[in-house]
């Protein structure tokens, strides 16, 4: 998904303006000439200048005339679904793992992703379960990362 440089540049400049505005609300400690706002303000100014030059150069040089040029994957429903599944499964893991537990949630996430990539469902489930179990043993057991035990492994 390629955004037209002429638009992207001005969006960055706008973001830079937001940073300057946000930094201006930071207080300067008493007795000090410079405070926590100085560095972010300089970065904000940098973003405004960088964004404006990208915006102006984009208008002059870019061959792209549409605001957004959609990549080829956006025209294929199956590839679209696969791309969207990545953030969806990560978010689902973050939301469900604390209650359902690592093992079940990770098995589900891996099964969904592998199936979406066209692998047979039974094969993916077995591989997903073995992978989740291996990660549980390596991270949860050996490295002592407190992976959420959930309903399946309450005492793990």
């Amino acid at each position, binding site marked *: 998904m390629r955004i037209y440089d002429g638009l992207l540049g001005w969006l960055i400049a706008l973001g830079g303006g937001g940073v300057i505005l946000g930094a201006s609300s930071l207080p300067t400690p008493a007795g000090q000439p410079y405070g926590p706002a100085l560095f*972010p303000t300089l970065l904000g100014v940098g973003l405004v200048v960088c964004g404006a030059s990208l915006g102006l150069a984009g208008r002059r040089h870019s061959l792209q005339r549409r605001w957004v040029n959609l990549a080829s994957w956006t025209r294929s429903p199956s590839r679209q679904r696969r791309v969207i599944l990545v953030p969806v499964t990560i978010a689902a893991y973050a939301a469900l793992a604390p209650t359902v537990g690592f093992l079940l949630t990770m098995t589900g996430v891996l099964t969904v992703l592998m199936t979406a990539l066209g692998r047979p469902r039974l094969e993916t489930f077995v591989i997903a379960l073995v992978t989740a179990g291996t990660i549980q043993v390596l991270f949860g057991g050996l490295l002592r990362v407190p992976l959420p035990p959930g309903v399946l492994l309450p005492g793990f």
Partner: protein
Amino acid sequence: MDALGAAFGLVLQPDVLVAVGLAAVFGLFVGAIPGLTATMAVALLVPVTIFMEPVPAVAVVVTVVATAIFAGDIPGALLRIPGTPASAAYTDDAFAMSRSGEAELALGVSLVYSVLGGLVGAVVLTAAAPLLAEFALQFSSFEYFWLASLGLTCAVFMSAQSRVKAIGSLLLGLLVSTVGLDVVSGQARFTFGTTELLGGVHFIPVLIGMFAVSEVIRHMAASTSDLRVPARRIGNIFAGVAAVGRRHWRSVVRGNALGVGIGILPGAGGDIAAWIAYAVSKRCSRQPERYGTGHVEGIVESASANNSALASAWIPTLVFGIPGDSTTAIIIGVLYMQGLNPGPTVFLERPELVYAVFLTFFLANLVMLPLGLAAIKSATLLLRVPRDLLMPIILGCCIVGAFAINNAAFGIVVMLVFGLVGFLMEENGFPLTPAILGMVLGRMVEEQFMISMIKAEGNVLAFVDRPIAALLAALAVTVWAWPAVKTLRSRVAGLRPVG
């Protein structure tokens, strides 16, 4: 000498040797799979290294990078798909050699000269870093500020993509580093009322997001399925390698020298070293027309350069705390987490650890020879690993890695956000390396800038009062001004009347 003896004692431990062996297998595997980069391999391993002692942690990272960079040559030679960007420069030659029945020679040259390059880089690192550290002890906040600025400048100007976009990427990284408590006053900034952001945005989930999750998204968006790998028996890969070295000894020397020199520059890693070495090799060759058609000379020079650059990139990393490329930027984070704060004082306070780090480079490159041979012999098997199964497994490791940093789901959210940001940035031509360097160096740049400003009571001339600071400032300004000077010169040349 005592420090060196202690360093040998630290490295020759069973846990370090086992960790190096496993890391080499992991690095060879990741490097050989097209689409998985050395940076991604390190990003996936970093959450594991936080549970290790400093020496095995550093040894693991060094070994993974060295082996992954070499292993990228395997699919390059056999399938014309470089496993990592550092192999892309000479893929056409390696593949053409394979098609004409010289796959063994292409892979043998690549392995042997990668190992040699890695060892040369390690020698230079061991010799140069302590000397530079002694010199760096005289540095004050002004010199550090300019040095970090020079590092960030190089990161922008070494980028192959649009310079304005590289600057935008750098500013984004610097901005992310300002989130959390201010380094000087302790004031909370850009935390939006969340306690999780008070400690700042941890760079590891960002890194995993930008380099690994974005790669998984790219795989999901691609229409390609698993690679078609013809069965192939690999014979003796060492036959003829020494003769190639004798015939092209100038390329070996030049490749190593170029790699070491380019690796030291902040922002330029093995990828850029390989491309420049290939271009220089072609220009200096007696048979430039044969490049790209299966000529071994370019492979010798570039393979030497990309591996020698890996070790020399550690010189600014260890001596000044300024990373040379994206992997050393990650390593700086690993060193801080291990309490091994990079900078000249580490050479005085913990010399045995510094020497141990140097020794791991020698170890990693020596291990690469037998394990690299094994990887080449089992290339067909390695390349047939279905990526449709591998990518979801990588995503699973990303989730657990991001969680393990603080044992909190917040790391997963950060990883997701930066994964999407990284994907969109790459789709729009914004390089990721300046953002990572900005994030890692941001705190240091701000701290040195604020200390200098307070010391100088706002007098900006104090920034160039000391001779070394003035020299570094002049270098940074020259790099920034050079494109403008070039444009001006070409315009003036265009205006000059002909004849």
